[in-house]
Every structure is written in structure tokens, then in C-alpha cells.
């Protein structure tokens, strides 16, 4: 009970603060109720077609509802949607198992997850073997495509980034300088440019006859770019591990690589975890640019459906679509950022008491 009272008291602690509070309250009163009217009370929730939303100056959730399948799965055939669901469910179960205290060997388990799961997901989603109908990646879309790109990028940037970070700290000048060069160049280029490179120039650099589909090229560009970002975060983690840890491991008779793998890297990853989650958030957000390469990800499907002549009935459709897209991204990224704050607290000396 004391906290709200303290809050209120601080709001009027000085004449200036009281004035600011009044102005803010007035502003909130004039904006918040109309917003809820728009988003909830006056919004169209049910109906059959775009006619139900015409001439209603409020959110048209009907638009989202009628296109929900497309928003989730893009052009993936309706009869095969179960494969995406199965894939998502498996991934979720694996993640929960991994983060529960039952699993002891986290390094081994996460390695298994980052190697076995993508192969499993790839086979399941792509099809063509084990009697699964093949689904071309051009048909992939919606939130599923966004998550595929984001998760793939995170999963591949981590090991690659770790390798780069280790190479950058190597005592061998050639190795260290190559890593520095790679990281600095990648960090100086815009991802959109790399995406264009992957789309336009990639075919020129492979032997004639070799066709690599657009999604794979995009994934390669995303991995290469984010590995450099991840490397810098992990390097920070490695630097935060006291030198004594490595020396202690060596004096116990471990070899260089044993000491790194068993003592330094686990501690480095743990220290770098908040940064890794932050990079994951920006990966999640930057997946949206694949729509510039003509792919229909979550935002691409929404943006594409806005030019449907059936729904050209007013600004409310566009507003609803953007509001919905923003809300989905916000929920995902905000939960991740809370998670990052949580780990940071848990890892800080004060939180460990």
C-alpha cells in the first residue's frame, strides 16, 4: 500500500512536478479513452467480408481474422500446416527441457539442439523425403518464415560468432587479423546491402548450373552478418573472464583447448548472455527486411494484403494491420528484453546473494 502512496506523493512533490503531473493526466485523458474506443470498443470483431468494416472509423480485427492463416503460414499448403505446428511444438518442448534443471550437461544439450533441431525442422518443413509432400521455400511465409529466419540466424551466428571471437583473440597474427578484418568489414556494411549482394551477386560466384534458392541465400547473408555482431558480444564475455581461471585450469593439467572449452567459454557465454539476447532481439526485428528481397514474411504478408482491392475501404485497415504487426513484434521482443534483464540481475553480484 505504501508504494502507490509514495508514487503519488512524488508526483506532487513540487509545484513544477504537480503542474507536469496535471498536464500528463490531461493528455492521457484525451488520448487513452479514444485509443481504447478505436482498438477495442468500437472495433469490428466479427463479420463476413470487408463490407462490415467499411465506414467504421476504428480497428478492423475482422481483417486480421480473415487472413490469420496467411499471416501465420504464408502460402504454405493448408493440408500441411500440421508440420509447422509439430515443428514449433518440438522446438518449444526442446527449449523448455533444455532450460529446466533436469538437464545437467547444458553445453552438450544446446549443441544437440542447435545441430539436430535445424536438420529435423528442415526435413519436416521442406518435405520431399519420408513420404512428406515437398513444399517449395517460395511458398513459405508469414510468421513462420519470420521465425525460421530469426531462429536460424541466432542458432548459426552463435557458434560462428564464438569461433570468430576466439580467432580474434588468437596469438597467431594471421588468424587474429583475418578475424578483425572480417568483423570490422561486416559491421561497416548495411544488412540490406548484404541481402542485395546475396540476391544479385551470389549466382555470379558459384559454378554454372548450381542453383541456390533465395531463402538459403538470405539465410547465408543473415548468418554472415550477425556472426560478426555476435563475435563482438562474445569477445566482451571472454574478456570478462579473469585470466586466473584459465591459468587454474592449465595448472590442473588441462590442455589449452580443454581449459577453453571447460572453463573459459562456459563462463564467457554466461557473462555475454544479456548481450546475446539483445542481439537476438535485433535479429528478430531485422528479419523484416527480407520483404525487400520479395519474400512474404510476417510483415510482408500484411503489407501485401493491404493492396487487395477488396480491402481498399479506408485508412482503418492499414492502421489495424500496422498496429497488429507492432503488437506482435513488441510482445516477442519485449519478453526477450525482460529475459535479458532477468539474466543480468541473476548474474550480477548483488543478485547472487
Amino acid at each position, binding site marked *: 500500500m505504501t508504494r502507490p502512496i509514495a508514487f503519488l506523493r512524488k508526483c506532487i*512533490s513540487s509545484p513544477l512536478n504537480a503542474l507536469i503531473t496535471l498536464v500528463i493526466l490531461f493528455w492521457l485523458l484525451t488520448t487513452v479513452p479514444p485509443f481504447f474506443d478505436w482498438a477495442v470498443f468500437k472495433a469490428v470483431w466479427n463479420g463476413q467480408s470487408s463490407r462490415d468494416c467499411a465506414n467504421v472509423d476504428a480497428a478492423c480485427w475482422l481483417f486480421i481474422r480473415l487472413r490469420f492463416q496467411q499471416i501465420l503460414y504464408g502460402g504454405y499448403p493448408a493440408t500441411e500446416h500440421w508440420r509447422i505446428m509439430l515443428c514449433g511444438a518440438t522446438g518449444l518442448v526442446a527449449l523448455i527441457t533444455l532450460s529446466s534443471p533436469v538437464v545437467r550437461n547444458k553445453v552438450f544439450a544446446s549443441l544437440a539442439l542447435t545441430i539436430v533441431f535445424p536438420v529435423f525442422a528442415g526435413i519436416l518443413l521442406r518435405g520431399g523425403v519420408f513420404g512428406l509432400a515437398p513444399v517449395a521455400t517460395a511458398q513459405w511465409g508469414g510468421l513462420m518464415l519470420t521465425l525460421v529466419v530469426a531462429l536460424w540466424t541466432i542458432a548459426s551466428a552463435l557458434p560462428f560468432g564464438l569461433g570468430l571471437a576466439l580467432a580474434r583473440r588468437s596469438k597467431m597474427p*594471421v588468424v587474429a587479423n583475418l578475424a578483425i578484418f572480417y568483423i570490422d568489414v561486416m559491421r561497416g*556494411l548495411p544488412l*540490406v546491402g548484404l541481402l542485395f549482394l546475396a540476391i544479385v551477386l551470389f549466382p*555470379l*560466384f558459384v*559454378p554454372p548450373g548450381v542453383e541456390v534458392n533465395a531463402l538459403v541465400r538470405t539465410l547465408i547473408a543473415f548468418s554472415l552478418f550477425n556472426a560478426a555482431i555476435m563475435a563482438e558480444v562474445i569477445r566482451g564475455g571472454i574478456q570478462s573472464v579473469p585470466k586466473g581461471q584459465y591459468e587454474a585450469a592449465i595448472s590442473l593439467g588441462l590442455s589449452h583447448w580443454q581449459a577453453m572449452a571447460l572453463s573459459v567459454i562456459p563462463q564467457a557465454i554466461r557473462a555475454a548472455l544479456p548481450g546475446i539476447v539483445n542481439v537476438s532481439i535485433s535479429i528478430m526485428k531485422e528479419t*523484416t527486411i527480407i520483404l525487400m528481397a520479395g519474400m512474404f514474411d510476417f510483415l510482408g504478408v500484411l503489407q501485401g494484403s493491404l493492396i487487395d482491392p477488396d480491402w481498399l475501404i479506408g485508412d482503418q485497415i*492499414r492502421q489495424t494491420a500496422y498496429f497488429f504487426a507492432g503488437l506482435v513484434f*513488441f510482445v516477442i521482443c519485449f519478453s526477450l528484453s525482460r529475459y535479458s534483464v532477468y539474466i543480468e540481475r541473476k548474474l550480477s553480484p548483488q543478485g547472487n546473494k
Partner: protein
Amino acid sequence: MPRAVAVQTILLLALAGFVVFLATNLVGNIARLNLHVGFNFLARPAGFEIAQTPIAYPEGATYFRAFLVALINTILIAVVSILLSTVLGFIVALARLSTNPLLALLAQFYIETIRNVPLLLQLFFWYFAVLGPLPLPRQSLTAFGLVFLNKRGLSVPTPVAEPSFPVFITCTALFLTVAIVFFTSARRYRVKTGQTSRNRWVAGFVFLCAPGLMTIVAGTPVTWDVPRLNGFNLSGGTTIIPEFVAMAIGMSVYGSAFIAELIRGGFASVSHGQTEAGLALGLSRSKIYSKIVIPQALRTIVPPLAGQYITLLKNSSLASAIGYPDLMLIFAGTALNQTGQPLEVMAMTMASYLLLCLITAGIGNVINRRMQLVER
């Protein structure tokens, strides 16, 4: 260290092998597809129009001219976004650090919302959902009849140099130099003796009065060309294309949320003991801020701020998604398609971004070096 030598040799050989592999493929593909190679195309006329041309881009201008226009457009939007996002971020950070908890909460809400929504979506929002439904020029939204906002963009008054302008600017520059000389001598005097010099006031007086004085002597140096409604359109002034307005707003808002967090973190990193020590010495609040808190906070803020500016610069490449004529859209898009020389065009584009990033990072490093604590 024979092992290290072996490892590095193998690595270099593997890398060289990979490069040779790519080069062979490239040469083979160029021969097979009969592609043109070389930078001769830069001298050919480009033959397409650009919506925003900060430098002259006449009909029949070359591809190189188009490249320059696009490059300047990219720099323009990046610089404007960097400046606006810094100002906005500073204001949000002040709100976030305010003693009024309601204001601080509101600022936090702003920061979290903006940071967790993709920039591309925000650009779409500003361009299609906010600027798109604006009225036609006839029903423009206007502020004091000076600034007009409509579907075609933002029309603002333009300064026009009068004949007296060169005289005005030379004399003002002269006066400013005098002011600076007085100011530095005043400062040297104060450092040496610990006493304030009267030169300081002379400098301030000259600095403040010079432009006004020159206006009286030489006549009005600048007049303003104000846009006004003429039939169905606005004439006069300068019209900023809606793509630029959307980009500037979207990037500034997005950047401001990150910058606000940086500034907040910087101030939080200065321990409260510093402020208390200042109070104990009897310094005023403003002195404590300007001499103790802000210099120390800047030390934490500047390095990540430079990183943020680089990010903003790179993010400006999203402009092509809403049709702002930047390097990506004009050069890596239109020019690439028309010339059919993806290799040269992409190389120039990427090198430009890399160079811009390096320059930004370089400026950041210089500022950072001057800001850091000089240790004994």
C-alpha cells in the same frame, strides 16, 4: 612455433584457394553470360529521374552524377536523423530521469515501445499510415502560413541571399574571429591569474552584436521565399519530399529511444558521491552538472553513441523500402537494373557505406580520445 606456422599457412592457402575458386567462377560466368565489365558505364547518361536532387542533375547527366546525387541523399538523411535523434533522445532521457515518476514512466513506455518494434514497420507506419492520408495541397495543414504539410511533402520557407549577403557574411566572419581572439585571451588570462578578464565581456558583446550591426549597415542580407497556395498547388519555398519526411521522423524516433537509454545509463554511471562532493564544496547545482556530472557521464556515453550513429547510418539503407532516393534505391536499384553491371554497382555501393561508417567511427574516436580521462 612450427605448429602455429603450419596452421597459419594452411589457413592462408585455404583462403587463397577459396578466392581463386570464386574468381574462376566469376570469370567463367561473366564470359558465359556475356556481361559488360568495367566502370565505363559511369560516363554514360543515366536517363532516369531522381525525386530529390541536392546537386544539379540535369537531363542527360551521367551515371556517376546519379551516384553522387544518391550518395548525398544518403548522407543527408543520415545527418538529419542523427541530429534529430540526438536532440529527441536527450529530451526523452531528461524525462526518463525526471523526479516526476509519472513523466519518467511515460518516457520508459516510449523507449520500450519504440525499441521493440522493427524500424521497417515504423517507417511503413509513418509513410503509409501517417503521411499517406494527408490532404492535397489545397487543404494543406499549415503552421502560421509559413510551413505547409500535405500529400506532396513538407513545404518550408527558403532563405534567398540578397546582394548584400557576401559583404554581410565576410564582415560577420571577421567580427567572429575578433570575438574568438578576445575570448581565448580572456581564458588564458584566467587560467594564468585566476581572475576574470574584461575581454570576456568584449568578446560576448562583439559576438552578439556583430550580425545585428551588419544588418543595419549593409541592409537585409537574407529574405525568405515563403510557399503560398497558387491554384491547386503550392509555389515558392522548398518542398521536402514525403519520403524524406517519413524517413527523418521514423529514424529519429527510432534512434531517440536508443540514445535516451544511452544517456540515461551514462548519467546513472556517475556515482551520487560525485554530486554530494560538489555540494559539500559549496558548488551551485548548475556548476555541479556542467563541471562534474556531465563530463563524467559523457565519457560513458560517447563510445556507444558513436556506435549508435553508425547503426543509424546503416539503417538509412531501409529508405529504399519507402522509395526515398538513397544509394540503395537509386544506385543499387535503378542503376543496377539499367546497366546490368551488378558487380561494379554493388562494389561502389558497399564501399561507399563502408567508407561512411569508417568516417563516422573515426570522428567518434577523435571525440572519445579528447573526452577520456587524462591519467597521470
